[in-house]
């Protein structure tokens, strides 16, 4: 068991190292005199994502070599999960396509299914759902639902599925209704601090990536100032939304939903930015393009404009998506969700099934 994890970590380190040093932003090549490519730093997120997938492939290969089976992985794939995945993929595509074309708002809502499968069945099914969604969305789904751009972002969907899997496994999406006021207030403060810290870190990281030169140009340009205020307004909006959810619904899980959404959003932004920048020049035809235009107007190049756009729209999209998934989990009857591999962790405490014996027995096989 340990051998597999060591092999996986080794693979991760190698791929990440090679990627950072050589790969960087593959449109600009390595800068002399610096051991890594500064301008390419913005694609370190993508490199890490590829490293994660390679680690998984190595883990599976080692397990297969040891035990001629992938039981630790296939256990998460019971018939119910496999039947849920096409539904989740269709939800991603039908809702994603509908939102992208109909509302033209800066969110995509195309990962509801991926996060749902992750939460209900675990990281691996979540990752596979995300991966297949993006591949099928480009190669197999006919217009008007087809999206030529989706396949390129498959790696992002894989990471979103994995994150949702661990968030579900950690019990973050377990309903915690009518909490005493005291613990609500305590958790509200903690969450606001966490949101502020994450937003500030994202800002610092962004400034570090776009480098000192770009910052003077940007600051002097009114567009950049407007974007700054927009980002602040969205953070404030998230906090207000959180407080409403906490105190209006007295459900502590609202805090976990918001934090989970922000975390996934920021990671998704960091991974998808280099893909969007280098493959599509920062545009995807969705509502988020006007954000990219604003960043470009502020004097930033394609890569940094796309990252900026991602750091603004992805967190909001993922917080909204996590909230929609949470509403679905609440509305699902006990019978439907309890049967999934991680179903028990999405159920309110005390709702789990009572078991006494006197002759009753579960499935033998």
């Amino acid at each position, binding site marked *: 068991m340990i051998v597999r994890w060591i092999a996986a970590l080794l693979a991760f380190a190698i791929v990440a190292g090679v990627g950072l040093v050589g790969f960087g932003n*593959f449109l600009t090549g390595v800068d002399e005199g610096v051991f890594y490519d500064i301008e390419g730093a913005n694609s370190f997120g993508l490199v890490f994502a590829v490293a994660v997938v390679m680690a998984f492939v190595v883990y599976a290969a080692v397990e297969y070599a040891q035990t001629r089976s992938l039981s630790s992985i296939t256990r998460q794939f019971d018939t119910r999960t496999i039947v849920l995945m096409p539904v989740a993929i269709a939800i991603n595509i039908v809702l994603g396509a509908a939102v992208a074309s109909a509302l033209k708002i800066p969110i995509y809502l195309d990962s509801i299914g991926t996060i749902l499968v992750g939460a209900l069945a675990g990281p691996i099914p979540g990752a596979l759902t995300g991966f297949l969604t993006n591949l099928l969305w480009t190669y197999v789904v006919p217009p008007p639902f087809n999206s*030529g751009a989706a396949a390129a972002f498959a790696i992002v969907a894989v990471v979103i599925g994995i994150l949702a899997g661990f968030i579900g496994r950690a019990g973050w999406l377990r309903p915690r209704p009518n909490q005493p006021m005291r613990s609500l207030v305590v958790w509200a403060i903690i969450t606001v601090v966490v949101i502020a810290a994450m937003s500030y870190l994202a800002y610092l990281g962004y400034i570090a990536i776009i480098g000192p030169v770009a910052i003077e140009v940007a600051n002097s340009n009114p567009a950049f100032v407007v974007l700054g205020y927009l980002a602040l307004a969205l953070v404030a909006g998230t906090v207000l939304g959180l407080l409403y959810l906490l105190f209006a619904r007295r459900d502590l899980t609202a805090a976990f939903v918001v934090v989970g959404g922000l975390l996934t959003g920021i990671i998704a932004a960091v991974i998808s930015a280099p893909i969007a920048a280098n493959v599509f020049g920062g*545009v995807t035809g969705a509502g988020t393009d006007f954000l990219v235009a604003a960043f470009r107007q502020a004097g930033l190049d394609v890569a940094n404009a796309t990252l900026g756009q991602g750091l603004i729209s992805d967190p909001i999209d993922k917080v909204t998506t996590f909230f929609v998934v949470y509403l679905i989990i609440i509305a699902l009857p006990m019978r439907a969700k309890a049967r999934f591999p991680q179903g028990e962790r999405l159920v309110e405490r005390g709702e789990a099934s009572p078991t006494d014996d006197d002759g009753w027995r579960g499935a033998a096989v």
Partner: protein
Amino acid sequence: MARSGRLSEATAGRGLPDFLGRPGPTAYHRLNPLTKATIATTTAIAAVALGGLIGPAVLVAVAVVGPAIAAGVLRDLVRTSVLLALPIAISALLVNLFFFPGGEGELFRIGPIVATEEGLGLALEILARIMAISGAVTLFYLTTRPSDLVIDLERRGMGSRVAFVANASVQTVPAMVERAGQITDAQRARGLDTEGGVLRRLRGIVPIVGPVILGSIAEVEERSMALEARGFARPGRRTLLWAPADRRVEALIRWGLLAALVAVIALRISGRLP
């Protein structure tokens, strides 16, 4: 492409029915699905890696328009791929033309926004790249039945469960749209007003999206039982009724294309490409 009407004598016996695995109308259609998928993928990635205008243009001519003519799907290809690429193309044009940082060669100006030469150059580059990608993908889509590709991959060793998810998704997407339509009717019959302004339409999202998701998930239990009642949970490989033909020469073509793609990417990374 199931054929309705009387069954021909060929299937009167007990063999494989003639409507399964029927070869496509042209030579390009009859290529192995994986070959066509490799052509589409290498064309798309190479267009990105090559960059510039000439690279993608040549790729489109050779790997998209050429085969499309051979397969007799050019008209559909143009119509579909343009439709597919339009939203991205318009955004790419607008964003890059007008917002190219530090562009000097001013073409024209609309108020504070300046259209620059460099912006136009980059916009055209991205346009060429997008056309190459959407053309390659559309060519694949127009000449290959999705289930044929899935069967071919399963024959080569892909897990039968992954094959199930891929095939089932293709049927679930249109079914879900039909379901959403029926649900919209039912909610409007209960007084939900979907003809008002944006705000009113936003209020309609939960009553319409909710049943689509809840109804589909509620069916998962019965669907999985029906599948298990037909031996679905049996581990290991399953028998395939048929699989698309593959020839050695196509295998060579596939590996050749992949090698060329790796070469292009290596050149790009090492900076030797223009």
